[in-house]
């Protein structure tokens, strides 16, 4: 393909030793200062816990906001996630990165809320194993409508909001938040292959949705 500046190509430099996915920054080794803050927070130091909040609040709040699409609810969920963190922080043993562990905790809070509301069109488990009918369409067969021009932010937000929960979660974690598949697999208790497969289906669904927005006459 002549497009030598394609984002995939630019990002896809060969990796050695299982390094980070192309275009992504390798997870930084635990900063000794951060590790010390974590240790103090685990020992019940309130100031250290406040520092942990400052370090992670943006990512956790953004995740909640994108999952529920409502500011007030996202604030409540962020609050609940950090309250749960406070209760459980002593149990963190460092088997995964702290950020991965915290995200897993926050995801559980969000999913519990979505289940409570009954608004989730599809459960996480179902999304991880969608039936062929629920999956996005493949490219062959349909007329080829290239997404011309830049993607409009609102259009993408709408399309992401309309994704089934499991697809939305994986898309946000990988493409928006920048987590790698091994981290997502750890957060969601699934295989790396499953994470890759679901991300691909999420992108295909978004593509279908964006094409429908651009060409509403093509909707089935």
């Amino acid at each position: 393909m002549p497009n030598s500046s394609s984002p995939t190509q630019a990002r896809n430099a060969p990796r050695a030793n299982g390094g980070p996915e192309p275009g992504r920054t390798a997870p930084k080794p635990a900063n000794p200062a951060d590790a010390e803050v974590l240790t103090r927070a685990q020992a019940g130091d309130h100031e250290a816990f406040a520092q942990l909040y400052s370090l992670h609040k943006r990512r956790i709040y953004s995740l909640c906001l994108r999952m529920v699409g409502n500011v007030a609810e996202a604030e409540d969920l962020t609050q609940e996630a950090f309250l749960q963190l406070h209760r459980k922080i002593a149990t963190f043993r460092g088997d995964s990165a702290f950020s991965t562990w915290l995200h897993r905790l926050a995801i559980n809070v969000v999913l519990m809320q979505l289940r409570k509301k009954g608004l989730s069109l599809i459960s996480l488990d179902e999304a991880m194993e969608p039936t062929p009918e629920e999956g996005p369409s493949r490219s062959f067969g349909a007329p080829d409508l290239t997404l011309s021009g830049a993607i409009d932010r609102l259009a993408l937000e709408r399309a992401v909001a309309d994704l089934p929960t499991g697809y939305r979660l994986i898309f946000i974690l990988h493409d928006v938040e920048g987590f790698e598949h091994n981290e997502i697999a750890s957060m969601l208790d699934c295989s790396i292959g499953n994470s890759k497969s679901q991300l691909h289906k999420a992108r295909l669904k978004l593509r279908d949705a964006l094409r429908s927005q651009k060409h509403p006459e093509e909707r089935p």
Partner: protein
Amino acid sequence: MTGDPGKMSCAEFQAQLPELIGSGVDVSADPHLESCDRCRALLAELETIAEAARQLFPSVEPPEEVWEHIESALKREGE
């Protein structure tokens, strides 16, 4: 799957995409794309979506009240 990747069908090529995209393999150099406009367009669109996600969704700062509520709740729990 055929032995010659250049003769791969669209279905076979697309079935590999979840593993190929982001794997370090230069998908855009795949021989199938040389002769398939449809799959080339699909790959470009998926790349566009992934790029847009990175650029269009900056992280958001929660309002100060969230921490205030957390502190109040922690005080209540500690009492």
